[in-house]
């Protein structure tokens, strides 16, 4: 591509504007430059402090019981009994405290652990009258007659937990040494060929370990900084120009749309690239030359050629980040709006960059087709000294292609009259449905941000609360807020209409058919990207923990999402988007939006499929009610199946994949269900772009 005069002029203008605005310059360039060294130095400092603190940490131990003498003797007589290789003298970590009531002191956190030493007889009596916990083995057991040492601690306090652990390890070591010496003393030589010595030795080459460490988060850090830095110039450029009115002037100049976008894109890229460059130089300087002495995990040596290769690898990521930022700016009608989009955009860009942190992800898998994520994995592999050239080149090309596509969308966006004319401000103040239709995506993005922040920052242990707050509150409140803010008519916005009674037959058939279809999709995903089994198990547990009775699960896992998620997705989101797409695209888009609200990568395809089905039902019946019933029944079936409460259906069978035969039959049955619904359809009103004469 030729760098024409207009491209260079636009580029120069953006860079000048940036350089002349001290605030933006500070945020986008200076801050990132000092950030990494600051993080490194701070991390180094914290780590060394922590190490010192842990070393200094000692545990307060009280001893009680009728064998206090034994306990003390064990803990004090360490000189000759410390097992070889145990490191520093463990007794120094235990500080004995003499107390009247050790139990109370433990409860009040005045001490960390209590060591209760008893004769066998005392212990038995205690267990019988219930004053002593029998312990995991229960009475009677191995070593009947041997004295018992019980370590009492409070698992909710770190110091107590760790003290108990350290004490237990120490006592076990001593016990072993004592046993050996007793055997020896009794004239039993320990037969060395029958004793197992177990040791673990890390044989990974140091570069690989360190490279893996660095490679896991390098992309994430760089991408985050590039996005933040690039956004300073990006929000100001198109969105800011709409607000200031300079865009109209620029668009009436002879420059081609492509030239304007190229110039601006290059400027954002220059900033993002400078940031990437500076960070890599930083890493090289600080780590490679050892200016900051970060021992261990981060001490990686990066040769200059590798640093250069890194830059080349990151080039398409730089272009893609810049393109996405520019596109965001093109879609925003004002500077403020562009800033509003920034958080979700940042998350969307950073999420794939976090993929290299996942264990067991290889570049030779479907991840190769995910822009940014594929480069992240390639960089990780490169830093481990393990590159597969064709994959790396494919990753590069895929991300570059994505960047080109985004750039093309930018060009189209500044030709789009509706996006361009940011000056139609009357409607902006009066609110109304038209405004909601324009802003619906922003609101969805904000909801997404809220949901992600909620899910990752507010750990709610109990599933019932998680469902009530994280699903019920979030998705129940959203439609209310939107309806109020835009003064929508609730019945229309939520599609609260009665469908034709015949539709219900289709729904009843559709639920099991839909489940089989979704399971088929899951199998399909599984063949492309194998879903880790642990993930499946933990997911199953998360959704249907044993401790909660079934009827409660039905409420919290089936009914609450069935109603509130529908109110949000098939309610206001569908209502807001209905004019933008034809019915088919609309079902796909709303389904996909529904999918991305289930953050686990592996759940997106399946929930999106369910989302598409539910949207299609709503579009055909013009009512949200069939989708609510469908969604609730669908989740209820999953709950019942996981408890083996569906007659004739084995949860193992569902978990291991139902096989292609069943899923294809499911798909066919789904077709029949939809034929029934089609037969009794009362379509959703006003779908598709309005016809302009």
């Amino acid at each position: 591509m030729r760098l024409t005069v207009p491209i260079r002029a636009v580029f120069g203008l953006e860079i000048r504007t940036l350089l002349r605005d001290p605030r933006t310059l500070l945020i986008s360039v200076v801050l990132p430059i000092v950030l990494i060294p600051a993080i490194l130095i701070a991390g180094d400092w914290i780590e060394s402090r922590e190490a010192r603190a842990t070393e200094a940490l000692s545990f307060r131990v009280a001893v009680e019981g009728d064998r206090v003498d034994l306990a003390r003797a064990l803990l004090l007589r360490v000189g000759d009994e410390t097992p070889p290789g145990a490191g520093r003298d463990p007794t120094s970590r235990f500080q004995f405290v003499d107390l009247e009531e050790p139990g109370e002191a433990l409860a009040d956190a005045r001490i960390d652990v209590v060591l209760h030493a008893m004769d066998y007889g005392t212990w038995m009596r205690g267990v019988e009258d219930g004053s002593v916990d029998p312990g995991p083995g229960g009475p009677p057991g191995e070593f009947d007659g041997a004295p018992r040492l019980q370590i009492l601690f409070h698992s909710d306090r770190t110091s107590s937990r760790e003290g108990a652990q350290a004490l237990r390890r120490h006592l076990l070591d001593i016990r072993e040494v004592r046993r050996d010496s007793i055997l020896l003393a009794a004239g039993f030589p320990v037969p060395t060929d029958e004793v197992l010595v177990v040791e673990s030795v890390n044989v990974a080459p140091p570069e690989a370990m360190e490279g893996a460490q660095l490679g896991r988060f390098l992309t994430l850090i760089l991408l985050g900084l590039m996005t933040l830095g690039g956004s300073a110039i990006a929000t100001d450029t198109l969105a800011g120009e709409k607000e200031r009115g300079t865009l109209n002037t620029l668009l009436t100049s002879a420059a081609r749309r492509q030239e304007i976008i190229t110039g601006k894109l290059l400027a954002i890229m220059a900033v993002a690239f400078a940031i990437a460059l500076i960070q890599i130089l930083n890493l090289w300087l600080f780590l490679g030359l050892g200016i900051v002495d970060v021992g261990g995990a981060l001490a990686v040596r990066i040769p200059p050629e590798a640093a250069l290769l890194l830059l080349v690898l990151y080039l398409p990521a730089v272009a893609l980040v810049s393109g996405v930022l520019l596109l965001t700016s093109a879609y925003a009608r004002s500077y403020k709006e562009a800033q509003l989009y920034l958080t979700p955009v940042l998350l969307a860009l950073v999420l794939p960059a976090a993929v290299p942190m996942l264990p067991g992800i290889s570049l030779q898998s479907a991840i190769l087709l995910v822009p940014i994520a594929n480069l992240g994995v390639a960089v990780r592999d490169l830093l481990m000294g393990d590159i597969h050239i064709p994959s790396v080149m494919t990753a590069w090309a895929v991300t570059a292609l994505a960047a080109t596509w985004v750039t093309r969308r930018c060009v189209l966006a500044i030709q789009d009259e509706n996006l361009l004319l940011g000056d139609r401000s009357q409607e902006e103040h009066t609110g109304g449905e038209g405004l909601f239709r324009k802003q619906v995506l922003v609101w969805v993005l904000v909801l997404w941000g809220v949901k992600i922040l909620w899910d990752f920052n507010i750990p709610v242990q109990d599933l019932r609360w998680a469902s009530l707050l994280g699903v019920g509150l979030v998705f129940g409140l959203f439609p209310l807020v939107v309806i109020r803010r835009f003064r929508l008519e609730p019945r229309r916005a939520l599609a609260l209409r009665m469908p034709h009674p015949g539709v219900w037959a289709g729904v009843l058939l559709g639920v099991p058919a839909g489940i089989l279809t979704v399971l088929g999709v899951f199998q399909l995903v599984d063949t492309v990207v194998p879903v880790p089994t642990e993930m499946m198990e933990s997911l199953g547990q998360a959704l249907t923990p044993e401790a909660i009775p079934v009827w409660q699960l039905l409420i919290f896992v089936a009914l609450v999402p069935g109603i509130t998620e529908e109110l949000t997705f098939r309610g206001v989101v569908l209502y807001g988007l209905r004019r933008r797409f034809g019915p088919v695209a609309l079902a796909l888009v709303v389904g996909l939006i529904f999918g991305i609200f289930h953050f686990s990568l592996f759940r997106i395809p399946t929930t999106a499929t369910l989302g598409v089905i539910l949207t299609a039902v709503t579009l055909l019946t013009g009512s949200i009610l069939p989708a609510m019933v469908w969604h609730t029944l669908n989740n209820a079936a999953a709950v019942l199946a996981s408890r083996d409460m569906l007659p004739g259906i084995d949860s193992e069978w569902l978990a291991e994949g139902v096989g292609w035969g069943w899923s294809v039959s499911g798909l066919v049955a789904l077709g029949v269900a939809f034929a029934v619904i089609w037969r009794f359809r009362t379509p959703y009103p006003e779908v598709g772009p309005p016809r302009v004469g």
Partner: protein
Amino acid sequence: MTDPFVETRNLTKTFYEESRGEVRAVDSVDLTCRSGEILGLLGANGAGKTTTLRMLSTVLRPTSGEAWVMGHEVRKDPERVRENLGFYSASTALYPKITARETLRFFAQVNRFPRERIEARIEELIDRFGIGDFANSRVEKLSSGMKQKVSIARTVAHDPPVLIFDEPTVALDVLNAIELRQIIGRLRDEGKAILFSTHIMSEAEQLCDRIAIIHQGRILAVGTLDELRKSTGHHYLEEIFVHFARVRDPSEAEVESLRRDRP
């Protein structure tokens, strides 16, 4: 007679709006503007002036009809069209962080003014519009009068044969408005074809060679002030304007007069 620099035929633009449905913002508009002529587009708020001018400057695509600037059709050859025109509007803002001189250079460059002549052209513009004193100051530091000068200079930076002024005087004080009108007059004398939109009658009377009255997207009448006077029998442009607006929409006019008749 030479070909007109600007010509439109059946130019139409329809917007779709939720509350009002289809809006014919511009409806079958035929206009011409020749070299050395100021054509005034006179119309009330929402008449369709801006929409017409935006279609001419290729920012909006016509729904139907055609428009040519220096023989280039707006849909077929938008870049050539834009090369040949300069667009100025009241809301035309400048880039705050660059200097006046850089502004002129930027617009000469993006408009593909021949590279070797750019610097000479900038000096000429600085001279002509009296920018010399603040040529090297950043635009954000200039007064609005100074900014207005820079704005006009950047509009003509690439010396285009066609100039479009969309209500350029709305935000100006009296003296600045007068100065701007003088400048526009001089540009006409140099042979530019100028389209000038306004809702101020006196401004149209003073400045425009021909006046097109636009109302609800339609051109109701076009002609010199004298021609319009003759055809309506009214003297003042205001009366002429009302005359045409009533003819166009008698029921509305009736309601209006009824309302006025009430005590």
